[in-house]
């Protein structure tokens, strides 16, 4: 059906002369009549987002200021039912996306925080041993049925099951937003396990049987890129890199999220942060640090930056001793002067 040869050796002339996309300009109306997939929110708990524009508006409404690329990727994720992988430096707002999404879709946010050594039992489920043991004691005291099997059967029931985030997501009565946070902190084995779960949202608990999700969760994975994630897992997802915001964008964010801040202060804070991010630090501050700092300054009743105040509040921006040392003294004065 497809010309194999064409795929193997495309040249640009080939493309030009064989081009069949024959829509001359100005004819976009013709294509608006084509059957198009428009998502719609349907009953039954399936999570679909309306359109890219709708999402952008909704994000703004919930004071998440992001660009159209984000809205597009979210829209595609819901339309294609694919998980989304958000990568970026720490503190740029990746986790927040999931939170806002849950608000917009009016559903639960189920969060799985990853860490090194995370395994299936901490992510999926565990039996409540203590409760089970108590039950056994009660049974044996009451000298009821001596049948080990029937006791065992009731012990390994849902009542004694501790549901961890992944199982919660699978058993959720309404399709949730499943946030798998900082997947780069887990290891390859966990990724392989996750891949399996994400492919059909169905797990088998030996004592209970197979549990299948009624409603597919909207899955958001985040990574701080401290480690390369397994290819197979990456391929499963739509990918978006979230960069540090531009000055204008960060200013928008600060003004929106820090009530009562003077515009001058906001401008100075953002300019300062932009400069700081061009410098070399062990851990560059992100947007969350900008917001923390701005909030702190407002609490201290400041309208603009001065060296003393900045020095006193450096802890909201930098979290490592070496980084603070690097910026103190002359350097700090320079920075403040350049933005004030």
């Amino acid at each position, binding site marked *: *059906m*497809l010309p194999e040869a*064409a*795929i*193997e050796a*495309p040249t*640009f002339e080939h*493309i*030009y002369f064989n*081009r*069949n*996309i*024959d*829509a*001359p*300009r100005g004819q*976009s109306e013709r*294509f608006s009549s*084509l*059957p*198009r*997939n*428009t*998502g719609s929110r349907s009953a039954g708990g399936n999570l679909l987002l309306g359109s*890219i524009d709708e999402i952008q508006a909704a994000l703004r409404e919930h004071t998440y200021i992001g*660009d*159209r*690329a984000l809205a*597009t*990727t979210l829209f*595609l994720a819901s339309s*294609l039912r*694919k998980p989304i992988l958000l*990568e970026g430096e720490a503190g740029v707002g990746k986790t927040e996306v999931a939170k806002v999404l849950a608000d917009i879709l009016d559903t639960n946010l189920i969060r799985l925080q990853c860490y090194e050594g995370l395994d299936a039992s901490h992510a999926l489920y565990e039996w409540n*041993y203590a409760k*089970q*043991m108590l039950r*056994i*004691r009660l049974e*044996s005291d009451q000298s009821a049925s001596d049948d*080990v099997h029937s*006791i*065992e059967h009731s*012990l390994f029931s849902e009542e004694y099951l501790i549901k961890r985030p992944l199982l919660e997501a699978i058993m959720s009565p309404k399709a949730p937003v499943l946030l798998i946070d900082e997947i*780069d902190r887990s290891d*390859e084995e966990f990724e392989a396990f996750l891949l399996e779960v994400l492919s059909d949202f169905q797990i088998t608990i030996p004592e209970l049987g197979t549990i299948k999700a009624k409603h597919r969760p909207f899955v958001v994975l985040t990574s701080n890129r*401290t*480690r390369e994630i397994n*290819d197979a897992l*990456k*391929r499963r997802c*739509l*990918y*978006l*890199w979230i*960069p*540090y915001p*531009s000055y204008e964008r960060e200013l928008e964010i600060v003004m929106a999220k820090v009530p009562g801040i003077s515009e001058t202060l906001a401008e100075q804070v953002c300019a300062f942060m932009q400069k700081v991010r061009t410098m*070399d630090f*062990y851990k560059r501050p992100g947007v969350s640090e900008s917001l923390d700092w701005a909030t702190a300054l407002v609490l201290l009743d400041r309208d603009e930056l001065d060296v003393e105040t900045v020095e006193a509040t450096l802890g909201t921006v930098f979290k490592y001793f070496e980084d603070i040392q690097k910026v103190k003294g002359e350097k700090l004065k320079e920075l403040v002067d350049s933005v004030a």
Partner: protein
Amino acid sequence: MTEQRILSDEERTRNRIERLVRQLGPRRGSLVENVLMFGAILRRRKIDVTTGRTLDALESLTYVDLFNREDFYEALRSNLVSNQADTEKFNRAFEDFWIPLAIAEGDAPGESEGFDPRKNEQEGEGEGENQKSSDQQIEIEAFLDEDEADDGGDEAEDTPGFSAEEVLRAKDFSNYTDEDVAKVRKLIAKIAPKIATKLSRRTKPDRDGPIVDLRRSMRSSLKYGGDILELARRERKRKKLKLVMVCDVSGSMDVYSRFLIQFIYGLQREIKNVETFVFSTRLTRITELFKRKELTQALSAMSDQVADWSGGTSIGGALREFNEGPGKGLVDGRTVVVVISDGWDRGDPAVLEHEIAQMARRCYRLIWLNPLLGSPNYQPLCKGMQAALPYTDFFLPAHNLDSLADLARTLETISAA
């Protein structure tokens, strides 16, 4: 009664393509072909694109306004790119492929917004670095493609006899003949896996282990009405270590680095957690190369490139590049870092000291391998070596196979601690 036939992958792909063609409308059949072609081009430019993803990209196009170039771009990018580093390559391919198409179509430049995918990129320092090193990797791989190693011949050879092997193990790498090279590869292939299994074993049920296996204990307690009379145990958790090798391949180190890296190559096949970097004038990550190719050729290529660099290299500079780049994410409390160099540092010893100190702070153990230690009269007198010594946990020779075996034993000791 209808029979449910299980469709093959090919059939399913075909069905999907047909469905998408229908969805896109009668005039769009060529769009499908173009997208598939685009996928193939990306693959040639070393972006990991599978058919499934290309089809997802195509399906995404059914959801967006094809005339909005920004959305069109995003629909493709989010499906076809999985790495920030690949985005630059993707943008170039996108421009090379789709823009001329659109222009040829009669889309006047003034009409569209002149959307430039590059405007969306914020060039961070890290991103630029990745791009450079992946370019280098492509160079190396290109070289390898031309000069595929002929590995077939060795199989039939007998392994060396006992005493011959002993002699070989003690022989300094710099004195190797071609024949020795072939033999040594076999020996390394023998040693490495043994080490690897020891380093990577996880816990397993063990009757006398120190950790109680609660789950199994519980189950067996049912027999006794809930009293735990038997404790099932697991053996002690071995520290799961990561190995990071940073190897000097500049002129002076040339001869030794081949064998050391051959050894690591053997290890890497078995252990998942080994990352390898080499440096001469700049730092290159070669972990991925290991997973695919015969490495000796790659090293020849690299050392040829720095043939005019006599004497030494800036070790401090290379370590700095490592610490500020990939090292940040890789080196932590579970990492064993192995630096392989003769210590002839052309750069500022203060820099070397600063960087090695930082590395030592961040990692679990720091091992320095120096081939010059093989010579009995060697004293670490050069400034570079002196600066680094106080920070290393182990200072070992690396000039022949016996020393590699020693390294293996040291690694074992570290992981058992």
